[in-house]
């Protein structure tokens, strides 16, 4: 039986969680103060995911860069693939919050969207 201690990152409270695993399967989760913590703990030990935020160069806009994020979380192991895929991406102004900058980033099925308006 494996025991893993983690900090929940579902919200800024950061509850300390303890997960018990047997053969890669989650047996129990303790320490959370809301459902999100339970969900996060199970996910984090079996298939950890993250939201990735970054910046992309803007052409002909009032600002030089626009901030972007993965619309949903992607597998933690794909963070650098995602960033690499943004490397030479540029977007022409105007950009609005929610605009898809790169669809299906790094083959994750998740779009990279703008999080700021640049006119």
């Amino acid at each position, binding site marked *: 039986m494996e025991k893993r201690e983690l900090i929940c990152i579902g919200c800024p409270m950061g509850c300390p969680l303890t997960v018990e695993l047997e053969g890669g399967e989650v047996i129990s989760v303790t320490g959370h103060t809301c459902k999100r913590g339970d969900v996060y703990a199970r996910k984090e030990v079996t298939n950890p995911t993250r939201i990735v935020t970054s*910046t992309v*160069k803007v052409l002909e806009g009032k600002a030089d*860069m626009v901030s972007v994020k993965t619309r949903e979380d992607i597998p933690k192991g794909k963070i*650098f693939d995602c*960033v*690499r895929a*943004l*490397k030479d991406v540029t977007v022409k102004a105007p950009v609005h919050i929610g605009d898809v900058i790169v669809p299906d980033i790094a083959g994750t099925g998740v779009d990279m969207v703008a999080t700021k308006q640049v006119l």
Partner: protein
Amino acid sequence: MTMYDVIIIGAGVAGSSSARELSRYQVRACVLEKDEDVCCGTSKANSAIVHAGYDADEGSLMAKLNVQGNQMMEELSKELDFPFKRCGSLVVCLSQEDLPGLQALHDRGVKNGVKDLQIILDKEKIHQLEPNLTDEVAGALYAPTAGIVCPFNMNIAMAENACTNGVEFRFNTEVQKIQKIAGGWQLTTSTGTYEARCVVNAAGVYADRFHNMVSDKKIHITPRRGDYCLLDKSAGRHVEHTIFALPNKYGKGVLVTPTVHGNLLVGPTAIDIEDKESTATTREGLDELISKAGMNVKNLPMRQVITSFAGLRAHEDGHEFIIGEVEGAEGFIDCAGIESPGLTSAPAIGKMVAEILREKLDLQPDPDFQGTRKGILNPATLTMEERNALIREKPAYGNIICRCEMVTEGEILDAIHRPLGARSLDGVKRRTRAGMGRCQAGFCSPRTMEILARELGMSMFDITKSGGASRLVVGTNKDQI
């Protein structure tokens, strides 16, 4: 190859003052400076004090030029438009046994020609003058003629005026070798060879290197490091006068002084080092200066420190200015060993060097010499109506870049485009004060960098803090991925 009449090595206060005084004459002159700007050596890292003149030995050149420089400072500050304030100084004595030392300073001062010196033994009177002096004070030497100056502005003003009057300046030009040639001297530098009939060696901590290239009678300059702490303007009125301790063999000791811009300056140490480039402060140095300063001034608000720095004094073994033609090296004029009171003496040093050259080269006055120089306009000195008229004409004066010191884009543009204009963040800082405030350029530096890049047609990657390798940004996002 042009044979200059005079080449001056070093664009610190001594070199720039010499250049300015020389520019009164019709002369082909050039200043060679190894750094990217004027005022990059000792001249930018000192106590900024205009000494009264009681410290130097009676009859010495230091004493003579100190008193002369002090007398000249007021008028020069108006001519060249740099800030100077005659705030007066107090040498503080902490015990009865040391009073003879205080008296000796006084007497020496009188002999050196310092006016209005007084010894005050009345504790109450001393505390009326300076409430934050230590309660342990036994007596004080009050020198009303002492003052504070902006060393950057003074140096820059002298250099600018020299440039306007025809003196050439070459930066990033390090002199490597000096050789006697027919009719003068040949200087090999990092940017090429120069020739001149006369050379002025105003090379600060490196002056011994050049002197020793031309003379067998060697001089030896030890870099004597002074660490300082600068406190926020909210502490600027902790004392009203410059407060000195009784001097010891290493120098004037640690002082506490208001600066001409309203900060409080504490320092320096006096630590002899070997490396002529080592302007790093040390933990021991900073601790030492804080504890020593606290002996003379109580309740020093050290939580208000906004930055610390160190400068290297050019201390020659003989502890005396060496100004004059070097024996056996005709046309080679030393201006060496310019440690304290170098800043104070600078106006007089310049005059002395110029006079030596005038006589030597039989220089004629330049009828077109412009002795007045207008500094960078500070819009805060204008009325609101005047300010708005200025902004209507030049909207950049309506755009505040440095929030802490309230410096506008207009002033920064002026700093960049005037003669010997700023080319780096520190160059802008020393001319305008942008970046000298309590956030220490945290807010304004990205904006100032943009302005420099735009105005000088430079890439952001080439913008530096202070020339050389001090690049600020190294690439663009993800360029290494």
